[in-house]
């Protein structure tokens, strides 16, 4: 690029340009506003500064390349030179900010008089807040956003793979630009069979082909039925949601009892409950397998629900107990005096206040039950089999159908994301209360 031998793949060049533009765009407006300029001027300047920083960054990287080569590992070498260049540019930017001219000199004078000595970091008036603190916040936010982008690359890659054809999915070198196809989704949802050339020709004549038939026909395959994926997803939904509801309900009840009533041997009971979480699943799989066979629970929804409920209970009792401990018992006492029964007090006073904890517990229980693999593999066969043991084994014609696996994983991710996102307001607080009180 521009005759420069930048020691970075294109992806990273784009990545760092975005990074510098964001840095410029978040810090310059702060400085400009502080000096009394309109914000748009700041944003504009910020963008320009960002692009210039990006170019300087690339030049620095190229200059530092010999230094990077000294380090044994090419990756570490580049990492070091990236860090050095970034720090240099940030220092330069910090120094350059004092050259932002003043719009109206008198305003700054008033600002400089009086007020606290330490920089003000909280204020309802944006212009009162210390500008360097604000721009550090801008840099901080930029770094977080860029890191989040980085951590989402595998997920995005999974999303891309879901739309790739078989050959594109295993292409070497990996393909970023490809022709999207629905093959993966269709292979995931259907059973197919291979057609001979004569049959393909005959098939092509038919008028009643749906679009998905057409897609698979390109691979010379005819759809012969629905795959098990839908059934297994449904099993997952039933088992995960029922067991989550059960474990949260039971957990809530016992957490309340542990929190409010005197129970003999309470500490031991609580430790017993926690210890059930420490078992490696493989330890108990065989006894449970034998037990389930005897009881006829093997490969049943009820069996899996009971199992996941039990496994999540320890967690939910601990989390919820910590939370209920936080609710002042005076509220209930007052309610009892007012003529409420214990049950009514529990329902009308405790429940509404425990919502946060319940939400957090629900998220964690659901994630566990939804993704559990080892038990599902050994304790179910067909009727109650959930999705996790079957997704990785989507074997297409003579090999792993990566697109179908990616599609399956995406479809499988959606419910859990929905649950988490809809309860996310409670998540942080829920964890605080539960976790801090544990132990």
């Amino acid at each position, binding site marked *: 690029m521009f005759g420069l031998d930048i020691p970075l793949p294109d992806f990273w060049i784009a990545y760092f340009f975005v990074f510098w533009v964001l840095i410029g765009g978040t810090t310059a407006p702060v400085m400009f506003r502080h000096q009394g300029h309109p914000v748009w001027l700041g944003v504009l300047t910020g963008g320009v500064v960002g692009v210039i920083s990006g170019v300087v960054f690339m030049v620095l990287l190229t200059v530092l390349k010999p230094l990077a080569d000294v380090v044994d590992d090419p990756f570490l070498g580049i990492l070091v030179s990236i860090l050095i260049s970034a720090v240099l540019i940030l220092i330069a930017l910090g120094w350059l900010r004092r050259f932002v001219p003043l719009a109206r000199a008198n305003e700054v004078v008033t600002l400089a008089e009086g007020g606290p000595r330490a920089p003000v970091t909280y204020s309802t008036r944006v212009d009162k807040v210390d500008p360097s603190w604000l721009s550090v916040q801008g840099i901080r936010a930029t770094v977080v956003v860029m890191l989040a982008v980085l951590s989402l690359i595998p997920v995005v890659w999974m999303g891309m793979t879901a739309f790739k*054809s*078989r*050959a594109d999915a*295993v*292409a*070497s*070198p990996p393909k970023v630009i490809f022709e999207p196809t629905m093959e993966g989704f269709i292979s995931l949802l259907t*059973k*197919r*069979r*291979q057609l*001979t050339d004569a049959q393909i020709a005959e098939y092509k004549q038919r008028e009643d082909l749906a679009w998905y038939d057409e897609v698979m026909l*390109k*691979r*010379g*395959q005819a759809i*012969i*039925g629905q795959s*098990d994926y839908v059934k297994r997803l449904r099993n997952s939904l039933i088992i995960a949601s029922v067991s989550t509801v059960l474990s949260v309900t039971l957990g809530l009840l016992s957490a309340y009892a542990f929190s409010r009533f005197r129970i003999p041997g309470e500490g031991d009971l609580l430790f017993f409950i926690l210890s059930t979480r420490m078992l490696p699943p493989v330890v108990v799989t065989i006894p449970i*397998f034998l037990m389930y*066979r*005897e*009881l*006829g*629970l093997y490969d*049943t929804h*009820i*069996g899996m629900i*009971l199992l996941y409920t039990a496994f999540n209970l320890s967690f939910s009792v601990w989390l919820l107990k910590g939370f209920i401990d936080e609710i002042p018992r005076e509220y209930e006492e007052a309610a009892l005096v007012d003529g409420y029964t214990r049950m009514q007090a529990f329902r009308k006073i405790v429940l509404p206040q425990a919502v946060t904890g319940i939400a957090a517990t629900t998220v964690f229980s659901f994630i566990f039950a939804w993704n559990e693999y080892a038990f599902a*593999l*050994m304790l179910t*066969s*067909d009727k109650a089999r959930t999705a996790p*043991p*079957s997704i*990785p*084994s989507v*074997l*297409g*014609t*003579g*090999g*792993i159908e990566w697109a179908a696996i990616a599609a399956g994983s995406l479809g499988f991710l959606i419910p859990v994301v929905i649950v988490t996102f809809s309860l996310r307001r409670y998540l942080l607080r829920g964890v605080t209360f539960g976790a801090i009180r544990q132990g």
Partner: protein
Amino acid sequence: MVRKTASFFLLIVLVLTLAVGVGAVKAAPKQQVTELTILWAEWDPANYLQEIGNRYEAATGIKVNVIQEPWGSFYDRMAAEWAAKGDAYDMVVGDSQWIGQGVTQGHYMELTDFFIENGIHETVTPATLKFYGEYPAGSGRYWAYPTEGDAVGWAYRKDLFEDPENQKAFEEKYGYPLDVPQTWMQLRDIAEFFTRPEQNLYGVGVYTQIDYDAITMGYETAMFSWGVEWQDENNNVLGVVNSERAVEALEFYKGLYQFAPPGTSNAFFAEMNDIFINGQAAMIMNYFAFFPALINPGINPYAEVTGFFSTPAGPYGDRYTSLGGQGLSVINYISDERKQASLDFIKWFASEDVQRQWAEVGGFTCNVAVLESEEFLNATPYNAAFAESMTFVKDFWNIPEYEQLLRPVQRHLHPYVVSGLGTAREALDKIASEQHQILVEAGIVAE
């Protein structure tokens, strides 16, 4: 206090009724057989079998259900079912090595009389009957109907082989023309010739996976071709598994791995097809069951220029390849009515007409008449190589202890072949001594 105890018991009773109740419902006896359940691994041929099953339902009204279990837990699922003497499945399309355990532990129903009565044993090729159906070897007793014939074969890129420049350069370097290899030595030369990392092209893909039997299947293909067996006539392994020739074969196999694309350090059939589809490999070894994907232009961009050959001969003139594939067995623990219904299905399935349909939908038939027909041989580019391979197949142990015997092989081959730890001699010595120990414990050989 009474109330407390009462409520406690009430709860226990509730939970127990819930549990037992579910069991009771499930165990309701069935008189009329309206449904047959067949267990197989989760892969395409099972879908084909389901389709054949649908035709059976159309013909007789009996529903056929093919349950697919992932390969990784296929054996576990069956073994657990056997241990419980369960009747969840009527039939299983079991791996060829399972037969010893199925027979000696009484899990499989004997089919000898049924085969002879209906002449079924004469409709399939002798090799497949021997490996998929008969136990003990040579006894004339049959336990499974050879359903999916399979063996290790090779796919290659015709465009690379037929390129005049490649042919010229190859002949200059090795002194003989570039063609489908006739011996393992030629295969090695060709692999070396096509290994060009700067073009992202590699010579050959070979099995290396540590789970189940993958790397063993790859190595034994070479081992058999060096004239080595897993045992001598007396089932002795010492000096057999670790013979001079075996060491040579293993060193050779490791040599081939040098020409494999990077990233195939834990590879089996799926990865073999992948490196072929993405154009990284000039040749791959793989089971025939996975070749249909390679001639499919919708999957493999090189489909038009893909050729197939059967395993070449070894340096001492032996020519063998390792066997895959499965036979259909009837589970011994089902009711007599269901056994009869299962036999009826097998009888129908084994008929030449249905076997022709089986081959047509994608199954690898073992039926002699179908295999020999011109129509079959020309149906696909690999059918000829398949038919040829099925005449010189050999298999790993198939006694009940086969799984135990397999473990040391997998465990010691992988570090040597992939990571280059130790020597071939050391690896094979370890395998031989551990296998010997297992055989002694099983009472098969004397100390």
